[in-house]
């Protein structure tokens, strides 16, 4: 089979959605943060830590639910640290995020070794994973059933989240406040709303989103935690958010574009291309996507204003 037949198959669509799931979750978190005026570079580390926490929680309790709670708690805890240092102690967001990522890279391997004696992966732990969902009735319809049914529960949840985040941002008072803080914090201060509090809430929601992105990797995409398994997906989610102009729908579409190349790289492994170039593809595609988007944006602003501001 050639590459194109592969891409047109149901298996490819399934894989595409598989690799898109963590990006959609996490980029929805990035959207909320960005709307409130915070660039959360710590997504990468939050995903990684939650991926491990979910595995451990489920392995030691024997319950998937407890695992999810542990993963979420980890995401919330790191987000709270990020929020405290960024909002209260006025640390630069990029540095804060980088610190969280550095911490998570060490912390996860450290905890893994303490609990399992291994540094590479958690295969010795009997952790639980999210199952797939065969949608009743729909699954029996030819074509549509193959396309839409049988994916991981979290994949459906990720797409659901796009709607929920959209509703939250545009149809609730909290969403209005989040957007207002991002647009003009002085204005929102002047009507007596605490900017810090709104941003804190946004960062915490973002933490939950990123923790699901991470847990999907270790409890859905794979059935165990592997060191550094996030491999830049937190950053790619930020890129998806930038390309989607921090709108839920646009960001989801951008995440799907980036995921397409991730999926494509899985297929290209079958060809006789040096594997390094295949592995490079998702990252190179992210750069290309960001650049293409920015060129287009620069052109449209130029047209609108007739000049470019430095």
């Amino acid at each position, binding site marked *: 089979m050639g590459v194109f037949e592969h891409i047109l198959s149901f298996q490819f669509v399934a894989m595409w959605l598989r690799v898109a799931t963590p990006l959609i979750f996490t980029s929805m978190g990035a959207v909320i943060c960005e709307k409130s005026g915070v660039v959360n570079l710590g997504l990468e580390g939050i995903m990684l830590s939650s991926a491990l926490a979910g595995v451990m929680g489920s392995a030691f309790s024997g319950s998937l639910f407890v695992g999810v709670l542990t993963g979420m708690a980890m995401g919330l805890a790191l987000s709270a*640290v990020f929020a405290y240092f960024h909002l209260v*102690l006025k*640390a630069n967001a990029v540095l804060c995020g980088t610190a969280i990522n550095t*911490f998570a890279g060490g912390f996860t391997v450290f905890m893994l070794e303490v609990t399992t004696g291994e540094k590479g992966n958690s295969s010795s732990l009997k952790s639980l994973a999210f199952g797939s969902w065969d949608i009743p009735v729909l699954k029996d319809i030819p074509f549509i059933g193959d396309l839409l049914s049988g994916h991981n529960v979290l994949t459906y949840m990720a797409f659901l989240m796009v709607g929920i985040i959209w509703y939250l941002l545009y149809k609730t008072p909290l969403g209005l406040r989040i957007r207002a803080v991002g647009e003009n914090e002085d204005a929102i201060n002047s009507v007596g709303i605490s900017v810090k509090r709104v941003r804190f809430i946004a960062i915490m929601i973002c933490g939950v989103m990123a923790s699901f992105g991470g847990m999907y990797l270790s409890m859905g995409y794979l059935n165990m935690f592997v060191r550094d398994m996030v491999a830049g997906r937190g950053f790619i989610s930020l890129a998806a958010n930038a390309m989607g102009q921090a709108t839920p729908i646009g960001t989801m579409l951008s995440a799907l574009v980036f995921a397409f190349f991730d999926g494509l790289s899985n297929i290209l492994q079958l060809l006789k291309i040096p594997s390094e170039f295949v592995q490079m593809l998702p990252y190179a595609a992210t750069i290309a996507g960001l650049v293409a988007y920015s060129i287009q944006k620069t052109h449209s602003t130029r047209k609108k204003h007739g000049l470019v501001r430095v």
Partner: protein
Amino acid sequence: MNTKSINRLVDATKLAMIVLVACLLVSVIILLVSEQPGVAISSFFLGPFSSLRRIGNILEGAIPLIFTALAVTLIFRAGQFSMISEGAFFIGIMGAMIVGIAMPLPPGLHPLVALLVAGVFGACAAAVPALLKLKWQVSEVVTSIMLNYVIQFFVIYMVNYHFREPEASSLASLKIAESASLPGLVPGTRVHLGLIIALLFSVATWFFVFRMRAGFKIRLVGDNAQFSHYVGIKAPAVMVMAQIIAGAVAGIGGGVEFLGMYTRFKWTASPGYGWAGIAVALLARRNPMLVPLSALFIAYLNVGSGIMARSSDVSSEIVLIIQGVIMLMIAADALLQNWRQRLIVQNATA
């Protein structure tokens, strides 16, 4: 006391506090997880000083950190947040390797050319996110991180397909010519000429940032881009220049590390000195003169954690945990700010 000495006092206190917290944190973590905490703690803190070879390990471990931290300093001073030091360092290694293997040159000249090529490669890598931002306002943070991944795979491809040792079972390049290696400095250790080069670069970077016109522009642009625009400085050009110079410094650092410590390329992933360089640069409060000291401190923690991992049951990743905490605390501008404020007010009203 004038404001300057108040600032110095508060900064020094903050630094002492951070070092203290870091050391306490190490001890607490060890006490929590280790079955022989005494051995672990003493090998962590005292181990690095227990032999000449280990002291040498600290010095040689500080060398790559000095270079990447200088690069980070230049970039941050210009108000940019490119994370390209990591990739520039790694591609610098590749540049030095290519010259070391494929270009027969006399000793003396050979490492010089190799480092030059390493610097050019690093500068080219750093120019990409810088120019993308200049031309189309693409955020340099994400593009630089993505580029680091691209560079990592590209370098490994180059080694794997063009410079691989055919006999070796795991990934290793051909041996570089002996004439390309940097000579050792202290017998009984692996400390090499790179240490001197690193110190010279620190002084030169300090001179550049604080005593030269271009460095002044970088600082001005970084502190207030709008203001610098009004006084007629082309801020975007200055930002790009700072990043390209930084890339060259990090690239040369990669070359120095490779030529000083290795005879073959053996990395399977980017070694992370660029990220650690951020912690070092922040710890030195973005002052190039202090970079060697803070690099020594981080290198000391690295060596200590390595010794501890070998002699006890605590793994060396503890050092990344500490690095993260250190970065968080230094980045926290408001830490001790109330105290600083009070001192300044007291001083002004006295």
